[in-house]
Structure formats: C-alpha cells, structure tokens
C-alpha cells in the first residue's frame, strides 16, 4: 500500500489488552484523505477498540496516533473531536429528550462556542446549515420530531448527521447499518455515502456485511486477533483465500 499523499491520520504500534484479552497487538494503519476505509474482521478482533483508541475513549498501553502533527493519544474525546475526528456509534447516541433539529443545533453550538446565554438555541445562525445537513441525510422532514421516537435507520442517520455537524475531517463509524432492517440497509447506506461525498469527509467504517464492503469501500483492512491481517483494494482483499476462510466464511 503505497501512496503519494500524506496520511490524514497515522496509527503506529497500538497495543492494548483487557486482562488477558489482547484487543490490539501492534496496529499500524494510515488513513488517507478522501478514502472510505472499511474495517472488517471476526467479532472480538479489536475493530471497535481501534475506533475507541483513535477517539480518546481508551488509552492503549503502547503506540501513537498522529494527525496533522498532533499526538491524539492522551487527549480527551472532546479535544480530539475539536481537531476534526468525529464519531458515529453502533448504537446511535442521541439526545433523546430533544428534537432532531435541536440535536443538530447543540452540535453546531459547541462547534461555534455559541455560549451567549440570552440567545435561544433555535435562534442560532447555523440553523439553515443544520437543516441543509439534515436534508443531506434525508432527515429534513423529521427535524421537529423528538429523537426518541425515530426508527433505528433514522436514528443511525441522525447520529451521523450530529457528527457531520462538527465539520470533521475524518468520520469514524461503527457499523453504520447494524440494527437496521435488511430491506432498508442499502437505502440508508446510499444516503450516507452520498452525504459523505457531498460533505467531502474522509471516513472509516467497521462493517460485518461483506456486500456493503465490496459495494462501497475504497479500501479494506482486515482485523484478526488484534492485528491487521491484510489491507488493500476491496476486489483484491475480498478474494484472498485466507480472508475468505477467516472472515467471510466459505
């Protein structure tokens, strides 16, 4: 894997174990601007752990994660967010007592440090921008609905929209379509890919659905027992006999 562009984010020698369970055993990975990298691998291989390390939720025993000259390890999640790494979750993390639009506005308010106590959240100048983002993920019509009453697919999209409201350089997504009815999966993924392309955000997504990966990823990294077993073009990786045996199953 050689490229001329400098990576957006570089992880080197990440090691972390929980008790006796090794979740990362020397992970080296570069993420390049503009790509859509899929992370695949069996359960317990350490895929989510890697996202948690990159976003400051977990501190590894060794290694480094660098972005634009800054070392991310040791930073709090909110500091990493401000540097431009946003996160979407396997289980959508929404403010369920607020409306969808209020969820977005809160994200925008934090981004803009809009702390004027005399201004209503709804009077934020970023309101139009947030509506535009909701339109991008096809959720404009539910802007005034309370976040707790949404079906899972829309919760996933709103979760991602909240992350996009940060105007991130890099978006890390943990199984963006898990928990969604299989008939809706591709529809949601199409909306998502389109939104990411328009927002020009580099993205990484953990995925179990191999068809999703072949269809949408620009590159694939295969996790196995805390290591990267293989990485490269989807067509190449997905046809590798070893990968088929350990991950895809066949």
């Amino acid at each position, binding site marked *: 894997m050689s490229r001329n562009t400098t990576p957006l984010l570089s992880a080197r020698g990440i090691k972390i174990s929980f008790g006796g369970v090794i979740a990362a055993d020397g992970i080296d990975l570069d993420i390049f601007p503009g790509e859509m990298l899929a992370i695949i691998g069996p359960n317990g291989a350490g895929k989510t752990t890697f996202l948690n390390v990159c976003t400051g939720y977990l501190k590894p025993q060794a290694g480094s994660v660098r972005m634009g000259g800054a070392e991310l390890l040791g930073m709090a999640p909110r500091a990493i967010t401000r540097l431009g790494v946003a996160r979407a979750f396997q289980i959508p993390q929404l*403010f369920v007592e607020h409306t969808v639009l209020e969820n977005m506005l809160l994200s925008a308010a934090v981004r803009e440090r809009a702390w004027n*106590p005399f201004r209503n959240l709804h009077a934020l100048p970023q309101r139009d921008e947030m509506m535009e983002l909701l339109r991008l993920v096809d959720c404009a019509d539910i802007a005034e609905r309370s976040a707790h009453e949404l079906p899972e697919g829309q919760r996933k999209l709103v979760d991602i929209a909240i992350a996009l409201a940060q105007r991130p350089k890099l978006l890390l997504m943990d199984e963006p379509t898990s928990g969604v009815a299989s008939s809706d999966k591709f529809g949601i993924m199409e909306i998502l890919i389109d939104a990411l392309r328009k927002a020009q955000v580099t993205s990484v997504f953990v995925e179990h659905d191999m068809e999703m990966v072949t269809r949408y990823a620009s590159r694939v990294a295969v996790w196995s027992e805390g290591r990267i077993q293989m990485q490269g073009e989807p067509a190449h990786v997905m046809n590798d006999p070893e990968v088929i045996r350990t991950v895809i199953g066949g």
Partner: protein
Amino acid sequence: MKRLLVIALVVVLALLPVLSAGNVTFATTVYAKMLAVLGIFLLLQAGQVSFGHGMYFAAGAYTAAYMGQAMGGADILLLLLAVIAISGLSGLIVGLFVSRYRYIFFAMLNLAFSMAVFALLEKLFHLTGGTDGLRVPRPTLLGESFSRAQFDIVIYYFSFIMVVLGSLGIWLYLRSPLGQALKAVKVNETRLEYIGLSANRTILIAYVFSAVLAGIGGLAFGLQQGLAVPELTFWTRSGEFVFIAVLGGVGNVIGVFAGTVVFQAVRFVAAALLDDAWQLILGIVLIGIILVVPAGLIGLPARLMELGRAIRKRRFLAGREQE
C-alpha cells in the same frame, strides 16, 4: 395565555403589600426559599440533586451578618454584590470537586461539604457565635435607613425582584445552548463529549449559578430574620429545598413557585394546628400531593383535566345505561 397568567401573577405580587399587608412576611420567606429552590431546580435539569445547598444559603446570611456588623449596617446592594461574589466563588471551589460526580455521589458529596460547614459554624464559637449564630444588623438601601415596619416592605421588594430576575435568568439560560446542553447531560454524556463539550464543565457552570441563587436566597432570609444560624446549612434545610423542587416538578419555574408557596403554607398551617408535631401534618399532606400528582404541582392542571374527562365520560356512560 400562559404568559398573560405569569404577568398577572407578577403584578398581583408586586401589589401585595398594598393588597394584603398581613401576608408580606410570609411571602418574603417564600421568595427567600424559592431562590434556593431555583438553584436546585437548575441542577435537576441535568438530573442531579444536591443535598448541600444549605451551605450557600448560610453563606448569604453570614455574609450579611459579618459585613453588617463590620460596617455598622451595610447597604443592601453592597451586600448583594458581596453575596454574589462569595457564594459564586465558594460554588466554584466546591463545584470543581462535585461536578466530577453524578447522582448519589454528587448528592452525598454536597451533603458532606455542607455538614462540614455546619460543624465549623458551630465549633468556631468566637468567630461564628456558635449555635446562637450572629445577629444581622438592619441594612440601608442607597444610604436610606428604615424602621422595622418599613424594612419589612423593603426586604419584601428586594426578594421579590430577586425572584423575578432569578426566574427570568433561568428561563433564558435553559433556552440557550448552554442550558440545552445541561439537559443533554442527563440524557447522554457520551454524545456530549463527542460533540466536543465537557459534561463536567457544563454541570460546573450551572452549579455556580445555583450556588449564587441559594446565596441570594440566604441573604434575603438572613435580613428578614435578622439572624444567621448554623441551622441554615444543616442537612434538613438542604433537604427541604430538594423536597420543594420535587414537589413543584422539574418542568418549569412556575412549578418552583407553586411548590414553595404550597410547602410554606402547609407548614404554616400545620405549625398553628399542632405546634409539636407539625412535621406529621406536613408529611401527610405532601405524601398525598405526590401520590395524586407524581409529576409535581406543575402537572396538576393536566391531571385535573384528565380527571374531568374521566368524570364526564363516566357520566356519559351512566346516562346511556339509564336510557
């Protein structure tokens, strides 16, 4: 409609000394406590309960006592500024510790701080007057001094204006991004961190505001009573604030007002009926209220409408059966 009702209420209360002079003292006590309860109400938005806000209430009263005695009766506005500074600063210092904790730990840590203050106020006799407390000299207002009767009116309007400003401030704050973030703390701290905001800091800011509100309440209370005593920071006092806040309901500021009025009124009547066991009556009435309207008094109109509908429906069905 709701807004008109609030305005009407404010106008009536502004005219209370003219309309019903006998209730001025009672109303002043309500306002003083309500200020502290507003502070608790604010923290409740983040799902947090403090069992120690009596310490800021006491801070307000003791500040008035110390400054009044040192200056031979200070000016109310000067006292107000001093109380805002002192309760704000102590709220910041204590808040830096407690804002790292949630729920029972947050509640108990506040309790611990306030009981430490209580012990100090009792034991440092030569500084604090011990259990007897300190006398709060009657202050002036813009250089003007007052007789006892005049001062009752002055302190009424002082606490009334503080309540109006405090309520207005909370209303604005809770609509603003910072206040909305406070409500978000209760629901999802993870997401808050991942949009770049510290949940602890969000709570800390609200905590400082709540301490200032309780401090001003304590100032009004101390001025009205003419006395600052350690009992103001005893845990039952802090518990009372929490109780009133829950009684009123977490919905909005009107509930805080209703809660405080009802609590004080029940307490007042109970004390007149049964001077040794007034807590018994208070307890029974409050249990009754909470059983009937679990959402607090703020839920009362909706509950009444619900009951009305049920009664109408039953009558309708009974009428049909007769036919």
